[in-house]
């Protein structure tokens, strides 16, 4: 078995297992983000989902892709690990999954923000979003967690996340998953 044969098989196995239709790992720039959104648009058109679902999906994707663009590199620029983007299609829903390095100092605050939005219903999220907007400072990288609130509101589902070891004292790998139902309740 050649090395590439093995790589294709590894990627295929992961994509099959997770029902992933698009996997991208590498530098994220505006063109790449635009083409991913365009791919998702084609995917959604092919699936024939409602326009409102498309809108939700787009909003969530934009928010998550913006997050990656902001947090894609480790500070030492060595890029030991790369950010990644995965689009999953199941029978009843899509999942947008991102992964990027995260400094260990930020893990607690990010986890807390996600857990907080996961514990809220739609009305609470709406109110929390208003308050967060009033209190946020635009210059903050990562802001006041507005992105997470927005993702939770738009996706109408809990946000899943995981933090994984990448053999670095300063960084871990942060994965975030948002689920968007194909048929709205």
């Amino acid at each position, binding site marked *: 078995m050649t*090395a*590439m*044969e093995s*790589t*294709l*098989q*590894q*990627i*295929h196995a*992961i*994509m*099959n*297992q*997770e*029902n*992933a*239709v*698009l*996997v*991208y*790992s*590498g530098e994220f*720039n505006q*063109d*790449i983000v*635009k*083409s*991913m959104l*365009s*791919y998702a*648009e*084609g*995917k959604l*058109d*092919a699936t024939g989902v409602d326009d409102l679902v498309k809108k939700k999906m787009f909003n969530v994707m934009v928010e998550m892709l913006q997050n990656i663009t902001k947090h894609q590199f480790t500070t030492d620029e060595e890029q030991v*690990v*790369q*950010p*990644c983007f*995965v689009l999953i*299609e199941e029978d009843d829903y899509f999942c947008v*999954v*991102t*992964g990027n390095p995260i400094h260990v100092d930020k893990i607690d605050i990010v986890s807390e923000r996600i857990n907080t939005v996961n514990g809220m219903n739609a009305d609470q999220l709406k109110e929390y979003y208003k308050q967060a907007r009033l209190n946020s400072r635009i210059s903050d990288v990562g802001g006041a967690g507005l992105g997470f609130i927005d993702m939770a509101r738009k996706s109408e589902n809990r946000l*899943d*996340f*995981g933090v*994984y070891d*990448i053999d670095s004292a300063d960084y871990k*790998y942060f*994965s975030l*998953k948002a689920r968007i139902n194909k048929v709205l309740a």
Partner: protein
Amino acid sequence: MDYTVSIQRVMKESNCLIALRDNFEDLLAKSALSILEKKIESEDIELSLKNKIFGVVVECVQNICSSGLRDGKTKDSVLVLSRMPNGYKIDLGTQMSADQEAIYSDIFKNFDTKDLSGIKEQRNAILASREHLTEAERDFLAVADIAIRSNGEVSYWVNESGNERFSNIEVKIINN
């Protein structure tokens, strides 16, 4: 979700730029090509090389990934674009019917007996003499085009895993 760590590791180690898995039918093929085109455009390489890569990708997506066992729901083709030290590589994995698998085996056996000019001659002969192409001839034309664009750097093999068979095509575009 630890698969995200595995994916980025596998892709980084293998210099994979992007991977797509789907049935690549009609509308989706256009979107897939669009995203691949953008990725190729963003590479710091000559336009002629970009055109070669994209030409091969188009053939792969339109003629190989979207043929065979397709039911509109099955996502059984994978296309991976990778960077190599001296060029680029397109790896394609797809499920084929037994008939199509036999056609591809014959095409590549035929290629082994010919140089590029022989492949071009056979391609031109098919194009000149046929109004209605057979499935085997259509497949030959697709693979011949890939072989010509890649200067013959194309190979084919089949993986077996349990009851599943997966046809693999590897195309290298060498930057001369």
